[in-house]
């Protein structure tokens, strides 16, 4: 009942802000003879963002709940891990204790840890048994991609579930993922719904929880409507083993601009699979993950993500037009908008202020309003008391993260992971 009242209030506020944003945009469109390139950029961005609200309405967690127990495919968890002695045990526990009708196994890969990770893995093996927990150990660190690949090769299940070593899987989440494969034979991969484990630690984690929520339940849901999800995050997603095997070598030895592609392994694999298969999102398949609690770690992570995003953007850009046209246009818009972002921000906050003395106030209000709309839309789907932090994310994005984009473009060949 309380949730319903909440939802009504949020919905009313949503429509009021939407109305104000639209009427302001229309007024400005009709009445300003300013720089037309910026105008076009703003129109495209607004249309892209507003279209997310419409498309996300059509998202459905498309899987029939009831299948006969025997039908469920066998599942192999692939968990690669480097120096996560504190969480690996719990991660394995959460995987094994999934309520799943058929066989589960867990492949744990120790990627050259220098702490007690291997010991923890062995403990888990003891706890369950070595038929269920298999360990692969690298003396020296070889990178996530290698670890994942080795894990897949050793796995015996029909479905591979990738889980990060600091993620915790919900009891029925694996069942939900598997049901997608059963419902639609064209689905090659399913993204889980990553939520933030350490949500209440500080403003940074609260902000990330709001950001993840919008990113998954609005943006990814839109991609899923067309079966064109471009990133199944490594922290929790499922693939048909057969789909991976088709592309495993190309993925494993992927090169970009002459250097080995080490990060963005999840996005990359998704794109390889997406060429031939549908990739969807499963809202119900929840897993929680630990997010950076310190700003410098957060920014390093974001920079890493941007590099892989740039690389994968160009790769996927090559074939995405073959998929649904709306998905393709959305993809290209989603690629160009952040890349041109820094130029727009420079113009509005520096050039306009200095040359024409124009206050960036309206731009800031516009950006904050849009972020409020997204926050509200998300919280209508899923309650989250920190939804308002989405505006904090937008501020950090506009002033800091957006500048990582040109930096990432310059440094895209640098494969160093930074602080993990």
């Amino acid at each position, binding site marked *: 009942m309380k949730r319903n009242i909440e939802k009504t209030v949020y919905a009313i506020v949503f429509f009021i802000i*939407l*109305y104000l944003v639209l*009427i302001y945009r*229309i*007024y400005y469109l009709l009445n*300003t*003879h300013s720089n037309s390139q910026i105008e076009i950029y703003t129109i495209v961005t607004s249309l892209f963002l507003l279209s997310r609200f*419409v498309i996300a*309405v059509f998202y459905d967690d498309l899987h029939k709940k009831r299948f006969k127990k025997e039908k469920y495919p066998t599942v192999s968890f692939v968990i690669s891990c480097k120096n996560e002695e504190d969480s690996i045990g719990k991660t394995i526990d959460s995987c094994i204790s999934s309520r799943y009708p058929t066989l589960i196994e867990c492949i744990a890969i120790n990627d050259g840890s220098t702490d007690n990770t291997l010991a923890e893995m062995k403990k888990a093996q003891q706890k369950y048994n070595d038929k269920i927990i298999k360990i692969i150990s690298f003396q020296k660190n070889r990178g996530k991609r290698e670890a994942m690949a080795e894990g897949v090769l050793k796995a015996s299940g029909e479905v591979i579930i990738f889980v990060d070593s600091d993620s915790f899987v919900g009891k029925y989440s694996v069942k939900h993922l598997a049901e997608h494969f059963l419902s639609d034979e064209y689905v090659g991969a399913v993204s889980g719904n990553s939520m933030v484990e350490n949500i209440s630690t500080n403003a940074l984690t609260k902000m990330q929880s709001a950001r993840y929520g919008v990113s998954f339940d609005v943006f990814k849901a839109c991609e899923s409507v067309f079966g064109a999800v471009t990133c199944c995050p490594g922290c929790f997603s499922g693939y048909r083993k057969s789909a991976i095997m088709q592309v495993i070598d190309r993925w494993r030895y992927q090169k970009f601009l002459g250097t080995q592609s080490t990060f963005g392994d999840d996005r990359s694999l998704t794109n390889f699979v997406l060429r031939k298969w549908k990739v969807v999102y499963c809202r119900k398949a929840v897993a929680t993950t630990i997010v950076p609690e310190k700003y410098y770690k957060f920014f390093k992570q974001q920079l890493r993500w941007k590099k892989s995003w740039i690389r994968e953007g160009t790769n996927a850009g090559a074939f995405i037009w073959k998929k649904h046209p709306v998905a393709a246009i959305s993809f290209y818009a989603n690629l160009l908008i952040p890349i041109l972002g820094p130029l727009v921000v420079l113009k509005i906050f520096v050039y306009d202020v200095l040359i024409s003395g124009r206050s960036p106030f309206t731009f800031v209000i516009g950006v904050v309003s849009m972020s409020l709309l997204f926050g509200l839309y998300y919280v209508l789907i899923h309650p989250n008391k920190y939804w308002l932090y989405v505006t904090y994310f937008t501020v950090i994005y506009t002033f800091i993260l957006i500048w990582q984009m040109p930096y990432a473009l310059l440094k895209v060949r640098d494969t160093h992971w930074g602080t993990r």
Partner: protein
Amino acid sequence: MKMLNTTQRLAIVLSCTFVIGLTIFVTYPHAEELLESYTISYYRYTPSQKVLSTKVDLSNAEPAIAVPILMYHGVTHEQDNDNTNINRFIEHMEMLKIEGYETITLQQFEEFLKDKYTLPPRPIIITFDDGRKDSYFTTDDIFRKLEFKATIFMVSGKANDRDKFYLGWHDLKTMSTSGRWDIQAHGTYSHDKILIDEFGNTGRFLTSLQYIDQRLETVPEYETRVEKDYIQNIEDFDTHLGYKPKYYAIPINEYGENIVSNYPQAGVFNTQLMKKYFSLAFIEGYVYQPGDEYSRVYNKPIYNFQDVNPYRVSRIEPKNMDAENLKKLLESNAPHTLPYTISFNDIDKMKTDAILAYGNMDIQENGLHLISVPGEESAKVLFGDENWSNYTVTAEFTWVSGRSIVLLGYANDDKNYFAFGITDGGVFIRETVHGIEQDLRPPFLGYVSLPKDTTLKLVFDNNKVNAYIDDRAMYTGITTSFTTGEVGFKTWDDKGNGEGILHSLTVTETK
């Protein structure tokens, strides 16, 4: 959105879109008007204690015979060279209120010119040029609370183009129905710069031949284009405000005398159009320059009398002039009726009324000390009204130093005046016409007094003059070229040491 199928969801999306779309469509005009005014906020004015409690008593005053017109551009919170700072503007308006000035409309002014309207004792017209947002939003409440009316001359092209800096038709409509504002014409694209040659040089829209299609436009093309601007201007008003403007503020003050243009006849042609389409046209006759309290930049009158050229009605642009100085400017140029006296008994009136043309002036207890400035040979002070005629002027003074001391009568400007004076050589009577000085009678030689208290008197009877020193007639029956003009007092010394003290000056009607 769990249980609904695709069609149902589509229905929801479409109906939401429809409802939002409809709401936007219905409420857009109201939103537009809110947003149009958001760029500049409406200034709320609180009258000062002084303006609420002080007011000059004009109950016995006679109706005025001429009108001064003020002109402003923007009234802003900043300080710049073209606009008026709001605090200064409030000082101007409060000064006008305290001094008993009443605003009249241009309609009433037009009627006055036709002798169909009686002016209040201290009339004033307040105008704004160009139609900027900051001419209205910052000033309206001031006019409301002081019960003043104003006129704004609108460049209609700016409203058509929805230029954010200028008032839109919606604002203008609100203003014209408020009862405080009269909207009149200032051209359509009159302020635009146009190319006048192939090198990128520019001139103004109404007063230059345009360089277009790789050639200079012909005169007929120019005339068509310019006339279209006038016609369009009037049409815009008719369409949006429901009336045709009768009054025109000449854009950029370009009305023929010194226009820099590639077409010398531009001023003449524009004046023809003004006469065709409007009843009155306004120029800028005086622009305040900082540090320059009294000089008339364009040599045009401060006050407009009934015989003013209706297409050259003069206005004053005070900009950021001190309110006290504006007050003096208006008072000292106000038409004075006879009899008129200036004396050391009323130092304040001496200070207010004296118009120092050049030199130094020091008003002390015994009168007005007029002193030449080193480097300049003469000093001149004027009093009264250019429209005075048939008067007797008597000046009591002390000649302190210098080679001559002069009483001026029928003085119109620096090049046209009548002079009667004493020099170290004798007494002279002469007039300067168009800058050429000429003795009207041979000078009396040998009559020298230094220093001495003397009275000089001139009796003007139409264009005939009698001149007296200490009531002794020196010249009689002199014919002068002038019939009207102010009175004045002047000293001269070729070494710049001239000084005279004017104790009193009286002007009466010649019987």
